[in-house]
């Protein structure tokens, strides 16, 4: 039997079987599994994020027994290309370089750089951002200057929580008066 004949026979088999596929029951079973995992993942995530946020707030508030924090969960975040990623530096930046404008839907929102909350962490792959409200005194914990008269003022912050539930970084949010 020549190779051409073998190839011809193989083509006949491929054509004969090209419509064969897994029965619908496999898809139904997989979708059920998908929904179950998504559901458990979602609740695990919310629980983990809440615990992580609580841990962050406990640390930040340990110095300031003032206003009660307000926490809201923002949509999940995934890494962005390095060039556009928020800078998470292990060093506190100089005050003059801290504040920068962000192109966000809230045109007048200004945010600080991210400040790391843990020294060594596994690479960040996926996570979630929590918008929290803190007393301004919390900014001092990352080295940002706050006037004595404003320590108790509420300020918003974004806490970046990794997929594993560890709080990775925090940034503070303000609003441009212009």
């Amino acid at each position, binding site marked *: 039997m020549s190779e051409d004949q073998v190839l011809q026979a193989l083509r006949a*088999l491929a054509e004969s079987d090209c419509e064969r596929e897994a029965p619908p029951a496999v898809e139904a079973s997989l979708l059920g599994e998908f929904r179950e995992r998504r559901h458990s993942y979602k609740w695990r995530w919310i629980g983990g994020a809440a615990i992580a946020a609580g841990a962050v707030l406990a640390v930040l508030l340990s110095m300031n027994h003032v206003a009660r924090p307000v926490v809201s969960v923002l949509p999940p975040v995934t890494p962005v290309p390095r060039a556009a990623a928020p800078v998470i530096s292990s060093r506190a930046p100089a005050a003059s370089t801290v504040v920068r404008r962000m192109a966000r839907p809230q045109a007048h929102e200004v945010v600080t750089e991210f400040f790391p909350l843990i020294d060594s962490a596994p690479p960040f792959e996926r996570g979630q951002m929590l918008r929290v409200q803190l007393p301004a005194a919390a900014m001092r914990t990352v080295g940002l200057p706050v006037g004595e008269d404003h320590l108790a003022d509420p300020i918003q912050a974004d806490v970046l929580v990794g997929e594993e539930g560890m709080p990775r970084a925090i940034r503070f949010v303000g609003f441009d008066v212009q």
Partner: protein
Amino acid sequence: MLSDEELLREARDGDETAFTALYRRRQGAVYRFALHMSGDAAISEDVTQEVFLALLEGGGRFDPSRGSLLSFLYGIARNRVLRRLEAKRPEELSGEPSSDDDVLEDLTRRETIEAVRSAILSLPTQYREAVVLCDLENASYEDAAAALECPVGTVRSRLSRGRGMLAQKLAAKAVRSLS
């Protein structure tokens, strides 16, 4: 139309529509690969399900620089099939036809197809997977190499050797049938 990689990303973010689209696009290829490798529909169903479950769990391990998502799926399917074949007793594999009643000389198209199917199942695994991927599923040499975790040159040589063995088996069968 979204690429496989984009669908995977959205599926891992919880988008059921994306997962369904990806499954429907690729399940046939995975199922047929398992079927041609094992000759067993039940194994093929199980493997197909396991491959997509593994994708949900370990899709993050997919590295586009090492090959397409389809080759990644073939790679998972291959491991699952081989695991099952190793656990299966040799006599359970339908590698050779059960009787010599088929006459190759005047085989109908259906008989030819079944003869080739049997001959493929009787090939040693390394040649069988090259023939199934490249000749039956039309996978590129690069995708096959990624799935089989070997160089492209190895895929080519296994494919050539596999075809040669198929030719011998089919010819031998024809002789047996005629005698």
